[in-house]
């Protein structure tokens, strides 16, 4: 019996070469496969092969055979073939290095497809100074839906811990600060939202056909995950010397002024109310927030909560 891999390659070739849709009987005649056993199991074997090829991206189309009412199959060459990509040898070499740097995550096969007919890649002399590790596998769950514009539904763990069902038009995928997000239009709220892929509790399922929506032209998916930015706020801090480096690498400035007890007064460009609070809390007693008043109060409230909560925990 022919090994399965050979049968699948040969089926692909036969369907690519077909000028008109081929019935299963015609495929049998041309390939010699699906001939043994009873017709029903031969049909099941063919259906399984066809589905596997489709999963690999081979566009097997089902059509009515002209002048008959029988079903036939073919693979349109234009949908199968990747048109030549106009890459230079240097570009191929750079891509190969980038794929190697990120391990298997970048899928060497995809690059081999793109570079199949490209010029020879020269050897790169220099070893790159920077390595990159990026886990791209979470993207698989939504890649088809994004590329084919299929509205999907999934169960989502909200920030407050509850679960909710979301139905969305998936516009795009963004990686930011170690997290993957799906930027999508939420049908129920009729608004663009960012959903963390690791908070999806199930695999998104299609709820409508491919091509059911058109993303807005002016959408910036990177902006959509950045959240509210408020760069206008300037934070004023009283700082102990040992914490000054942490502020300096965040763009803080020593104003040269001192508090009556001798601590340096720094200013820091505020970025985000919650993240600023978190960063400053992490500096503990090394900083005092002097302004803005809202941030000062938020830090006081958080410190009070932690001091009390930790107390309760110790007593228990």
């Amino acid at each position: 019996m022919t090994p399965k891999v050979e049968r699948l390659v040969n089926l692909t070739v036969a369907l690519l070469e077909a000028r008109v849709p081929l019935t299963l009987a015609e495929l049998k005649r041309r390939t010699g496969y699906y001939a043994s056993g009873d017709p029903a199991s031969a049909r099941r074997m063919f259906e399984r092969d066809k589905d596997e090829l489709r999963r690999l991206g081979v566009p097997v189309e089902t059509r009515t055979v002209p002048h008959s009412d029988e079903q036939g199959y073919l693979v349109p060459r234009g949908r199968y073939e990747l048109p030549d990509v106009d890459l230079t040898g240097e570009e191929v070499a750079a891509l190969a290095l980038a794929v190697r740097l990120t391990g298997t995550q970048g899928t060497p096969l995809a690059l081999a497809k793109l570079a199949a007919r490209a010029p020879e890649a020269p050897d790169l002399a220099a070893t790159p100074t920077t390595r990159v590790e990026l886990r791209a596998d979470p993207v698989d769950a939504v890649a088809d839906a994004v590329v084919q514009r299929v509205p999907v539904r999934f169960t989502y763990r909200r920030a407050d811990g509850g679960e909710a069902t979301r139905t969305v038009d998936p516009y795009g995928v963004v990686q930011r600060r170690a997290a993957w997000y799906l930027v999508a239009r939420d049908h129920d709220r009729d608004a663009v939202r960012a959903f963390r892929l690791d908070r999806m509790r199930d695999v998104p399922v299609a709820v409508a056909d491919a091509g059911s929506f058109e993303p807005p032209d002016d959408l910036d998916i990177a902006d959509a995950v950045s959240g509210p930015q408020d760069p206008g706020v300037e934070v004023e801090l009283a700082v102990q010397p040992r914490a000054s480096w942490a502020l300096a690498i965040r763009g803080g400035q020593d104003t040269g002024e001192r508090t009556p007890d001798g601590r340096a007064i720094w200013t820091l460009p505020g970025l985000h109310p919650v993240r600023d609070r978190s960063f400053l809390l992490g500096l503990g007693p090394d900083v005092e927030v002097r302004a803005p008043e809202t941030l000062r109060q938020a830090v006081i409230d958080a410190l009070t909560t932690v001091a009390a909560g930790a107390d309760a925990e110790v007593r228990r």
Partner: protein
Amino acid sequence: MSAPDDVARMLTLVPWVLHRPGASHAEIADAFGVDVATVRRDLEHLDFCGLPGLGGGDLFEVTTVGDRVVLRMADELARPLRPTAREAMRLVLTVDAVADLLDEELPALRSAVTKVRAALDIPESTADVVGSDGPGTRSTLRDAVRDGRRVRLAYQGRTDPEPMDREVDPWALHVVDGSWYLQGHDHGADDRRTFRLDRIASVEATETPVRVLAPDHLEPPRYVPGDDDLVVVLDVSPRGRWLEDALAVDAVEEQEGGGARLELRTDAPGWLARLVLMAAGEATVVSPPSLAEEVAATAQAALAWYEPDAAAW
């Protein structure tokens, strides 16, 4: 590897080898990210592929001399199959992430990414990586790695009260899911060390050439727990679950309401106490009691600045 993966590779291998008559097994293996044995097996199968029903004349012709391969009679597969949506997304996202970091070292990558995005129809509006430029120390360190020069760091170690001076032979920068690390040989410790760039207070390049070279295969940085690490249990609320990403957690136990109980090990309780503080009440220390006390004491010490009599002076 499963049969479908093998088929996807073989359908690509045909145009790849047709375009490069005389390619070696090793070159093919390298391009497809598989071993040489897999390439040999693929080629054996391909010798039986083509259109079998019409007789031997319609099969592909694989000729191997030594380890060099020539493929004929395979024009039916002269062009590669289009990448799937998943392959396209992964490829674009990973090469774009690298392009953001290696702009200056690999200028060809930027133009390549633009062409790949166009060919695969994955514009920035459907897939993007928001890179951080990295801290300001990055360019000095990158130049030192490239030129093989020792650097002098002021580094805030997790167990140090303030930044300490270190002399380091820098090997490579590493970006792991958006966080920056330097790996190299620390001359003070006389051992390899990993430094987080966001804890480098200052860096100074020296003229001293690197003495201890990087190993051939440099693994990405990982936290390796030590024998005398403290075992810590934390409860986090749903809003405190970012701590799971920030820490190397050994076990996660889901709790009612969306929170979780985390178990982890640390060699730096003081640093962990600050992280718990950052969670602003969304994380509490279950054990050990000493860490819970340290968190409370740190919060109370910070609070002292805000008490009325403190503000008065």
